[in-house]
């Protein structure tokens, strides 16, 4: 007789962990995406140094947030691994850092997260090099993030696919948020940046669908039952549903609004939709954090 089960962590601990990971991932993707956006914008003729102050401010606070929450991510993970409360988990942190895979990843991540925050808070104005540096550090952190989750169970190829998935999400969020943040520079800037943002978003969506399909196959195989009748499958359906809503809004923007950007009302509607897309994408990240803490069915 054999009995096997996933040993679910206490609900409160799990919620704590999911929220910590959600906020960290959202902040990290925002820094990575905005950094990449700034470096890309520079290529199209708008120097990063003319970006509005609120662009740098967004990067700075997001970079600070991912650094500030990182210790909470550690405490939450240790508490879940040891099945103890957060306070008891603190005493276990040294052992976890030295003896576990997650601990080693965290040790590698912490200085990079600090470097990201320091780079973001540098007193010099944001330029192409610094924006690219932020995107690069963010990318390395995303690789480490991918290597600490479910992907590590499936091997290096899966880690690479998960990283590509996260990077595409970051570029999409960064492009949308970037467009919204530079809108104050004037109508002509919006008219020139919006089509480019839309093209980037199109590639990001395609990459997310392809990498997400691969990740879904890793977790569920080709079983429709696993998709429909497991906790993991149902969370994935919610995530795909929300993703589809964002894609639909993006499609509407691309097909209906971007061709008419010379009309003021069109620009306003576009920026409102972009803000809505960004918020919904952050919600998708919450479902991604939930999936990361839900066991795929066997």
């Amino acid at each position, binding site marked *: *007789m*054999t*009995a*096997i*089960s*996933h*040993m*679910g*962590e206490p609900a409160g601990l799990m919620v704590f962990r999911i929220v910590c990971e959600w906020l960290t991932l959202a902040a990290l993707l925002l820094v990575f995406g905005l950094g990449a956006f700034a470096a890309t914008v520079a290529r199209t003729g708008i120097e990063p140094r003319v970006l509005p102050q609120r662009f740098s401010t967004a990067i700075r606070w997001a970079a600070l947030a991912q650094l500030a929450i990182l210790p909470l991510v550690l405490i939450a*993970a240790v508490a*879940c*691994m*040891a*099945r103890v409360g957060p306070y008891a988990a603190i005493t276990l942190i040294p*052992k*976890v850092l030295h*003896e*576990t*895979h*997650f601990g080693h990843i965290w040790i590698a991540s912490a200085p990079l997260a600090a470097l990201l925050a320091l780079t973001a808070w540098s007193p010099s104005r944001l330029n192409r090099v610094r924006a690219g540096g932020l995107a690069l550090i963010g990318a390395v952190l995303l690789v480490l993030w991918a290597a*600490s*989750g*479910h992907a*590590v*169970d*499936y091997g290096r*190829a899966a880690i690479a696919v998960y990283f590509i998935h996260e990077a595409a999400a970051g570029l999409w969020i960064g492009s949308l948020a970037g467009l919204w943040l530079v809108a104050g520079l004037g109508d002509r800037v919006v008219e020139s940046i919006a089509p480019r943002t839309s*093209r980037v978003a*199109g*590639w990001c*969506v*395609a*990459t997310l669908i*392809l990498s997400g*399909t*691969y990740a879904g*196959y*890793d*977790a*569920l*195989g080709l079983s429709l039952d696993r998709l429909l009748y497991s906790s993991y499958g149902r969370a994935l359906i919610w995530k795909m549903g929300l993703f589809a809503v964002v894609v639909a809004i993006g499609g509407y923007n691309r097909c209906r609004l971007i061709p008419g950007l010379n009309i003021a009302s069109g620009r306003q509607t576009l920026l409102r939709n972009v803000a809505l897309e960004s918020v919904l994408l952050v919600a998708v990240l919450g479902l991604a954090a939930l999936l990361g*803490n839900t*066991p*795929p069915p*066997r």
Partner: protein
Amino acid sequence: MTARGLSLAGAILLAAIAGAPAPASSHSFPETENPAAGQTLASSPSEVSIRFDAPIEKLFAVLRVLDAAGRNVAAGQPAVGPGGYTLSVKVPPLKPGEYTVKWGVVCIDTHHTQGSYTFTVATHGNS
């Protein structure tokens, strides 16, 4: 995003999935047990071991061998093999009877699994 680009990307994905091994399970679950679940042995094993399908963390690994009275008869702490796939514990010569193996592990993805199974050490001439 052109139709040609999408087609190419789709073809790459299909090729990747077609060439990929069958999906493994996330978290660590037993692949094989020794003694096997439900097995009846002619003599006492020297150790009990479980091979998992994903690496486990030694720090949180638990493996107990319980006799019919619920006493843990394992000798010492469980050991995790190279690569983190195998969890084993030595046992002293076991008397005939049914034994329950209880295990609990944390996969390197930080998530828990646990389980139990039984095996039997037969009385002489009854294997």
